[in-house]
């Protein structure tokens, strides 16, 4: 399934790579795309293995607070 996270805090475009790699490195996540300008993070994942809360935690461990968004 696809989950959209939003973070207001992305502050350096170099963190795009960092977040994308950390998310795709998480078990159950197939793709992750970070849009720096709008702060939107699109994740394609298997909710059975990694639920949306897990995704928020991964992003948090990198130092960014994010929220799940309906669209």
């Amino acid at each position, binding site marked *: 399934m696809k989950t959209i996270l939003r973070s207001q805090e992305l502050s350096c475009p170099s963190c795009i790579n960092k977040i994308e790699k950390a998310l795709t490195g998480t078990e159950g996540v197939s793709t992750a795309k970070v*849009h720096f300008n709008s702060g939107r993070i699109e994740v394609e994942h298997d909710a059975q293995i990694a639920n949306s809360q897990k995704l928020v935690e991964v992003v948090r461990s990198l130092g960014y607070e994010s929220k799940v968004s309906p669209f």
Partner: protein
Amino acid sequence: MTTLIQNFHNPKIRRQFLVISSGTLILLSLAVGLVFSTTLLKEILMVAAALIAGADIASRAFISLRNKHISIELLVTIATVGALVIGEYWEAAAVTFLFILGAYLEARTLSQTRQVLQGLLDLAPTTVIVLRDGKQLEVDPMEVIPGEWVLFKPGSKIAVDGVVVEGHSAVDESAITGESMPEDKEVGSRVFAGTVNQDGLLKVEATGVGADTTLARIIRRVEEAQDEKAPTQRFIEKFAQWYTPFIIVLSIVSYLITRDIELALTLLVIGCPGALVISTPVSVVAGIGRAAKSGILIKGGEYLENAGKISVLAIDKTGTLTEGKPTVTDVISLQPELQLENAGSSFRSNSRMEFGWDEPQSEVLRWAAIAEAGSEHPLAKAVLKAAKNFGEVPEASDFDTCTGRGVRAFFDGVEIAVGSQVLMKELAILVPEEAQEHLLRLKTSGKTTVLVSYDGKVAGIIAIADKPRENAREVIARLKEIGLKKVVMLTGDDARTAQSIATQLGVNDVLSQLLPEDKLQVIRDLQKEGHVVAMVGDGINDAPALAAANIGIAMGAAGTDIAIETADVALMADDLMKIPEAIKISKATLQNIHQNVWIALVTVTILLLGVIFGKVHMAGGMLIHEASVLVVILNGMRLMRDTR
């Protein structure tokens, strides 16, 4: 205790805590240094400060490294460790403190620039009252099925797109259109999700919910626009890609040559191209966000940059400079003795002076209406509207539309033609001297004219005028004021009519008698002259011209989803004043991008030279670096201010 740990997991709170504690330790250390002569305590405090801030940086560097990514945090960590090893405790503490302080302030300020989007997201209400099986049910707006009736109480947010089926109220649509005046809604009016019902109870039939609402489309558009990279951003990112590795290599090489470990570490500290990579995005996000707040949707950074360079604005007259509601102003009967003998009696009975026309004038209108009945042309609509009071229009046969010239039809075997002099000439109908004089007089006063012929003879003239918008003149003046070289009015009207209206509005350049396909050529010609051309239109008739222009601006897009999706710039409100505002925001944003790129480039150059010539040390380098990032962000945020 658990709450403390939870708080510590929240990056925002942790960052705050780390900044304060390491900052305090540095201050303490400096104070101790002033009071006591011994340096031991002072140094312990400095190292503690460096470790507290540095540990956080190092842990993030480690996570990135595990994901095979060389981050800026890693460079800072290496530099800090190096500084501690060679005994530069003050430098280590200052560098780490400035780095986390900078990160904290950057996150805070950047979230401000993303706030407009958040504001739009917050507009979507979380519950809505739907009428199901005669009962009122409170549900999630996403669960409403199109076609269902939804109830909105006074003061509540409208949660779906729909049509009012019962009640009337004023609705604040400022979030969608940027217009501050509430809009009156009655049965049949369209309402949009994200607007606020003010004083009445509205029952609305839902036509779109969730992602299928104008609000969702706007959010999507704004987001895509913000993420789409402007040409400057692409250029800078390429530059930045090489910058960091270049600095790392430079650092190693300079150590190998000079054996000066401090110089090498200082180079690592300034290795983050921070201000540079953020210079364009921050302006683009702020500029697009600012525009969205005024109901102006700009398709992306590239369009923003183009819109900032506009030198000529081509503007379609009908529906933009004018209200787009042509009405019949004069009817001249040239053959009062002619009567429409065979028309159905019901179509005749109602003609009286009370409708504004005398009997011979009404006769001319009737013939015109019969011929125009099948036409969708705006002028035809005006004629039909004027003839509405006469009852149902009897049916004619053999309609023939001659684009740009008029129509011809047969009624009971008699030919009726309505159109320009060209049409009359084509049909070999003589236009008498008297008619010519009337035509000239009417056109000179800015009216569009059509000749009406009955049975091969000119029977009368109908003059139609489309009132200029109240603020059209002011808008034209404003456009010139903000630096446009030329405003060109495009119209299908004849030259004299067009010139008269242009003079009223203060437009110097007019191109008249254009067919729809000519408009496209006009845009191309202007571009050949070296102009960056923006074209304003309603988005339907002028689609090719809008597409050919460097920037296509569609007006009154709130109701038309296609315009929101396709126009380079979509003005949600049907307000001319938004055009100069959109151009002004674009120009300001373009300027802002240039300023930011310069600030960043100059900073990077000064830092590099300063470090190489030994004038800038670690702490100073980090300070300048972080300060330049903040300056760039704050400069971008200036765009968010409300300026007209």
